[in-house]
């Protein structure tokens, strides 16, 4: 069965199938849908916007060239994220020798305080954010992909070429760390409240 004969209920899967069958409009639409996402992610891997744009173009150009052999991935988003990640590291390695390119992910987390507790002291708030931002970069990247981009453990393990268990463990560990300081703060703010009420 050729890709064009397949019909996908998911519109993005359908778009992908049409692109594989040589539909230029579907190809352009895919680019419109995913360029922003890839740019957003890519700019966290390397702080050079033009370079990231170049990499996005390269990926889509290669995709078109090899459309007859590319697969129908379960998650198009994860497929493209992996592609941009690989492309950026490969291109970078041509001009930065021996640098640990894998461990390069810039993201600044913040805690939306309205959603936690108005009583949360500035100090606590700051500590929580510090904790998040002091996580190792790979851990931050996993957190970002999981909670910001909404990707599954399988997708993340494919994107970052790690085994699924390591992804799971790292995520678990970072949430646990966060929760510990978080829940400590719960107790504190509770005590604070009690003191306010009874004083």
């Amino acid at each position, binding site marked *: 069965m050729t890709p064009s004969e397949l019909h996908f209920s998911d519109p993005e899967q359908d778009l992908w199938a049409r692109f594989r069958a040589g539909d230029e409009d579907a190809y352009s639409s895919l680019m419109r849908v995913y360029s922003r996402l890839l740019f957003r992610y890519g700019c966290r891997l390397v702080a050079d916007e033009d370079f990231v744009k170049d990499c996005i173009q390269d990926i889509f150009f290669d995709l078109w*060239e090899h459309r007859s052999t590319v697969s129908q991935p379960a998650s198009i988003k994860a497929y493209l994220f992996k592609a941009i990640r690989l492309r950026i590291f490969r291109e970078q390695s041509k001009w930065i020798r021996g640098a640990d390119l894998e461990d390069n992910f810039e993201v600044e987390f913040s805690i939306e305080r309205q959603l936690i507790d108005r009583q949360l002291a500035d100090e606590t708030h700051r500590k929580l954010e510090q904790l998040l931002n002091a996580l190792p970069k790979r851990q931050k990247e996993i957190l970002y992909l999981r909670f910001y981009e909404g990707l599954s453990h399988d997708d993340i393990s494919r994107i970052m070429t790690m085994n699924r268990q390591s992804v799971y463990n790292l995520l678990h560990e970072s*949430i646990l760390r966060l929760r510990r300081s978080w829940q400590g703060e719960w107790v504190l703010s509770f005590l604070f409240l009690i003191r306010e009420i009874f004083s």
Partner: protein
Amino acid sequence: MKNYTVYETIEDFLADDSFLKWARGVIDDETLEWEHWLATHPHKREVVDEAIRLLNSLQVRPVRELTDEEVEVLVSAARPRRQHRFAIGRWAAAAAMTLLVGYGSYQFYCWQSADTRVSTYQALTRAQSASLIEHVNTTHQPLLVKLPDGSTVVLKSEAKISFNPSFGGKRREVFLDGEAIFDVIKNPARPFYVYSNELTTRVLGTSFIVKTSENDVTVAVKSGKVSVFHGADNTDRPNALVLMPNQQAVFRRRDANLVREKAAEPVLPRPEIAVAGFEFSDTPLDEVFKQIQLTYGIQIVYDRETLSRCPLTASLTNRPLTETLDIICKAIEAHYDVLDGQIVVHGKGCRG
């Protein structure tokens, strides 16, 4: 239904994809299960609430988003070019770039005197405050010039190139008159600019050919990509064209018109070699050097008796010329010099 009762901690819940979906407010069969489950397990309400709060409070400071215009530039640059699919080989995949600035299809009669054209290169180089180094190839052989950053230029006969010897600053800049093959060391932090008459070519690093002359200037890209624009200022390049493989930009000097079109022909001097790439597996060195000579048109001088049989296994596709030579020399325990515009390889030969 999955057994969610084993979930104890916030981490357990946040590790579940359908939970995340539900926490984000997606309503489908999967997330409805959660509604149902929570109704029947009220004692889990507290930990679930806390997981949702943790998830929602975790914010990411956003980076700049691509604008609609930027997306359209990307889309239009990557538009398929069906007619030339055949010509794109491994070099394209490796994002190398070949660029030719050459004669247009029409030779206009003398609407512009030769003197005016020459003065363009001269005007550009004279306007520089620093004193420039100039290389002119007065011979009939290609001349290899090494640039201060390690990039190389092979100047064709009668071509000339000028650059600031310090090669400092945020841009690597050269001025070209005539035809040359560039092999630019990749460095996105310091883009490489070729100023050829009124046309500027910007690359981050890769391999391409530039040829200037006559009444129009054509920039044709073999593989990879390049931006070209009219004038020297690129601060906000409103008229820059981004060229992808087998596209070309034609700049008509008469009315300063810059348009993008399909490239007529593959543009490398020996396209069959470029497309094949430099992939060697137990290849005798003389064969390797022959391919490099054919591709770059540059002479490699070496002792055939000791070196020609040395087998080489290496993947050298899409590397700058100097890097290619470094790798080869390392493999065969040799070294090379650039003497008189030629590459001279010295080595003791290989045993076994």
